[in-house]
């Protein structure tokens, strides 16, 4: 059963130095508040996993929390680059960042395999791409996370991707009830898979209610699949929580200048996260 705790307690208990952490939310319901708490608690050496790193991982990377990034699309949507990500990859600031890069279909299926208790998933993907070639460089047996697999019935060659099993999944949801059942709707992305693939999980929610009334398009993660629930209204800002808040597009636009400059970023961090 999920424990209902403060955000600071949830992060302290769920996320440790060196953990593999998946903070998911596809454009919608990105758990920014939890990400900032991880920065404040100065976690280090994390493997950060997320289909779209977005600003949340640009901030965690810039703050020096990460040693590795597992991802499939690393831009500032509609704006341009993630400069803290690029600075870490290209110049090792503030620490070097290893990357493990996939396509969306590959990442989604890696989570599906993790949620399904399987070591791999099969897809039609990667054939002919340099991502595939890159993964297998210097490794005669194939990549560590992408390899060919042959259909045992037809002989057709398809692609296997290795399961992702994070130590911790972190999501933001619209609501939880007092038992810790977590409900979210709208674009639901890959959050269910991320939570079910992970050993532990944290859900921040806009509000805690007495009972979760059924909603069109809503998913519910039962309390016993979630480790910690914390009430954090606005916890997805600057992304949005359908029914609660709108995307703060100005923040995304303004981030370009902040993220581009180490000093500006450091100052932003001091004023907006640490203080």
């Amino acid at each position, binding site marked *: 059963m999920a424990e209902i705790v403060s955000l600071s307690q949830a992060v302290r208990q769920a996320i440790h130095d060196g953990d593999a952490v998946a903070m998911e939310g596809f454009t919608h319901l990105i758990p920014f508040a939890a990400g900032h708490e991880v920065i404040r608690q100065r976690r280090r050496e994390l493997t950060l996993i997320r289909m779209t790193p977005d600003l949340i991982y640009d901030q965690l990377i810039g703050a020096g929390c990460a040693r590795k990034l597992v991802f499939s699309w690393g831009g500032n949507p509609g704006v341009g680059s993630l400069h803290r990500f*690029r600075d870490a990859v290209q110049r090792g600031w503030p620490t070097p960042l290893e990357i493990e890069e996939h396509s969306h*279909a590959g990442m*989604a299926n890696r*989570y*599906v395999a993790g949620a399904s208790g399987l070591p791999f998933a099969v897809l039609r*993907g990667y054939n*002919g791409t340099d991502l595939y070639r890159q993964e297998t460089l210097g490794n005669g047996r194939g990549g560590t996370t992408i390899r060919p697999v042959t259909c045992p019935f037809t002989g057709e060659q398809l692609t296997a991707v290795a399961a992702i099993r994070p130590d911790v999944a972190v999501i933001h949801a619209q609501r939880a009830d007092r038992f810790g059942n977590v409900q979210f709707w709208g*674009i*639901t992305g*890959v959050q269910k898979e991320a939570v079910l693939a992970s050993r532990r999980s944290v859900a921040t929610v806009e509000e805690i209610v007495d009972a979760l009334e059924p909603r069109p398009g809503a998913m519910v993660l039962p309390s016993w699949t979630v480790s910690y629930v914390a009430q954090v209204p606005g916890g997805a800002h600057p992304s949005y929580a359908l029914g609660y808040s709108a995307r703060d597009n100005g923040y995304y636009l303004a981030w370009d200048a902040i993220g581009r400059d180490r000093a500006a970023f450091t100052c932003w961090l001091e004023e907006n996260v640490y203080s």
Partner: protein
Amino acid sequence: MTSQAGTNHADVSELGYSADEMMTVSAARALRDGMTCFVGIGLPSAAANLARATHAPGLVLIYESGAIGAKPNGLPLSIGDGILAETADAVVSVPEIFNYWLQPGRIDVGFLSAAQVDKFGNINTTVIGGDYRNPAVRLPGAGGAPEIAASCREVIVVVRQTIRSFVERVDFVTSVGYGSGPGDRERLGLTGSGPKKIITDLGVLEPDPATLEFTLTGMYPGVSVPAVRERTGWDLAVAAEPELIATPSTAELDALRRLEGSDHDD
């Protein structure tokens, strides 16, 4: 989106429309009513929404965020905008959109953009210059594009044409077009038929039926063949009689400007 992408192409010329507008209108015209269209991130979204707002009201827009049959009344701020979920026929999870909807080849057309594209329609959105581990420019990466390029029945690429973006061979094959030429898609087991058009701010390129090399087959009013070749990084072949593409109609321009001016919430 457009204001953020901000280039000089956004300027409206003396023709009464900008090169970007011509490109978007031209791309929109490539979509037929009733088609299903997997809308990639960036430029394709404006064109797909314009098509739906004009000649193709029954166009089914599908986004990798899981929205199927989205009907936004303005341009979504992102591919995961709430308006997509709120107006869609169905919203499914991200694994489902890729596995049940894209992968089996049930989508008519994939609409993609590119940072680099080469003469065989291969797309790069990963790294430019240097090598993968130490690139000159690190781009966002693959996203949904590799499997959109592999599995949609056909693909249309919408991209601004520059000497740096139109190259002989992309620095990194993020998404496969025709690989190194005829036979490659079949050899790789890619089920879709590959890119059918590259639509740029100068004109339209289509693959030569024999060589699959992209060839200039359509040009916008006021654009010359030398001007196109000047912004192409390979020895561009030109069709015997390239089509002169009609200027945007007032209805098309009005609809596009309404979309772009509106954001999603009006």
